[in-house]
């Protein structure tokens, strides 16, 4: 067993188990913590795929920033004191169907792609593609327009949030 395979199994197991634990916890904070663990182990999987930048950004943005805000809201709202008023019947069936569809689709894609295909062959190219330098170069040359447009997306979100939350009404 190569080191890579071993690490993959470890990260994948942690991700899968923490994902299951996350959706089965009744305490919301525990669920959020398992989600953090899940996101962190995904970062490990990205590292194994030579996507170092994505891996670190996954930790900084998802595990670090977004989940802190999740915890913030949970801690301030104290959902453990809330009662579940209505249980929508059939929502589990619906969720199950969606999950089954996604699973079938993923299984189909994985079984269809074979190790020798063009996507899997060039390892050095993938190492280079994952570095911060190459991602930066791509972002500021070929993808500069979507990049700038994303800036306006964040501006719109910021202005919207500030207006909706902070604006004083007469």
């Amino acid at each position: 067993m190569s080191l890579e395979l071993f690490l993959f199994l470890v990260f994948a197991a942690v991700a899968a188990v923490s994902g299951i634990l996350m959706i089965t916890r009744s305490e919301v904070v525990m669920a959020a913590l398992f989600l953090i663990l899940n996101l962190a182990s995904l970062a490990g999987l990205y590292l194994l795929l030579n996507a170092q930048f994505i891996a670190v950004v996954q930790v900084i943005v998802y595990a670090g920033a977004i989940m802190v805000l999740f915890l913030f809201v949970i801690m301030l709202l104290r959902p453990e004191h809330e009662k579940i008023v209505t249980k929508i019947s059939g929502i589990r069936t619906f969720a199950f169907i969606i999950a089954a569809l996604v699973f079938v689709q993923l299984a189909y894609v994985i079984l269809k792609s074979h190790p020798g295909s063009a996507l899997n062959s060039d390892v050095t190219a993938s190492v280079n593609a994952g570095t911060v330098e190459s991602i930066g170069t791509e972002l500021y040359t070929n993808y500069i327009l979507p990049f700038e447009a994303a800036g306006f997306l964040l501006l719109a979100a910021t202005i919207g949030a500030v207006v909706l939350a902070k604006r004083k009404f007469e």
Partner: protein
Amino acid sequence: MLYSIEEFYSILPFIILSTGILISVLIEMYSSKSEKILPWFSIIIFSAAGFYSLLTVNSMSVIMQGMLQTGGIPNIFHFVFNFGAAITCLLSVDYIKKYGAFFGEYYILIQISVLGMMCMAGAKDLFMIFIGLEVMSVSFYALAGMNRKRLNANEASLKYFLLGAFATGFVVYGIALIYGAAHSTSIDVITASFPAMSGNVIFLAGVLLFLIGFSFKIAAFPFHMWVPDVYQGSATTIAGLFSTGGKAAAFSAIIASLAPLFAGSVHVFMPYLAVISVLSMLFGSIVAISQNNIKRMLAYSSIAHAGYMIIGLAAGNHAGIAGIVFYLTAYTFMNLGAFGIVSLIEGNGETNLDLNSYAGLSEKNPMLALLLSVFMFALAGLPPFAGFFGKYYVFISAVKGNITWLAIVGVISSAISVYFYIRIVVLMYFRDSQSGFTIKNSSAGMLAVIISFMLVILLGIIPGSVINLISSFLN
């Protein structure tokens, strides 16, 4: 990156608008009278970008490393978005005081949403479509809930956000599957590999998910549930923008991404499109009859209109695409005019919105009654107004595409819809006023309505040359 001055000229509408947004943010920050300055500033920006796009409509090019297409149909859409937004701003000058959202950020968000729409219309890459969609939607979510103190507005914003995010999920998943199958997000590459991909389940599922996501945004039948509540809850002017700019932008994205596919001989998505088209037309027209609130009625009418437009997609030929573009242009101005008049009649605190408020309007304000009648006739699709030609071109394309039955369903549904449009005209001219409210004068709002009126008439007079111009870009 820009490599030449020609590229700079091609992307100028985007630069005008984005510079305008940044300047508007600074005005909002440093001026205490920003809410009075910004509508006029936005109108200047929108007019500049819109007319510039119209002037350069003939210079077609693909710029920004194959990300953006300018000239031709994207520029027509740019004109529609900008001009529609300018009319919305003009209507809002007095309206938002009534509504209770009298602040400058309102206009900044409209500007940003138009930037998103323009990104979608000119997209040559699925990235641009996705980011444009998000820029537009995020601004719309905030605009829908502009007045935090109204429960209706909160509901509208939240519903729009949740369902919109759901729809975006579909779009992104679709894009992911398309990318997985075609190994590229560039629309040209995807189009080129389409013949080879037409049997690929993953690819087809991706395109279908993409279409479903956009069916939400164009308010087609099974994905329409947010429309009435959102239009009713948000400001009337904003509802006008949602139903025109938002719908036009979603259609422009579908045209930008899938029009090359539809022009081919393989048209596997015809059944899906035909089904949602029929359902939207009939559902919208029939449910609109039972509505008592004029904004809800217009919302259901907007669902029906989405159905008519989808006929053009289902037809799967150039005539259909050209028909949609014409239809959207006409629809934008007539619907904005209708929403504009509703916003003029609306009183403080969302009053005067039920149909009875319109009884006897011809005596109270003959000018508004006349204009609203024209918009209603145009929406119903009666000749000689612009709406008639929109439907005509779309139906003709269906006949050309050998799906005559769809055109027939469209005609039947139009006939049903005449009832509720004409009902308002009857109320205005043949019933006596029941409530004694007065209509506040708003010269800016009136100007906006008259401009839309003139455009509706103009498109009704010269539909042939407009459709020829549009068709010339498709061949």
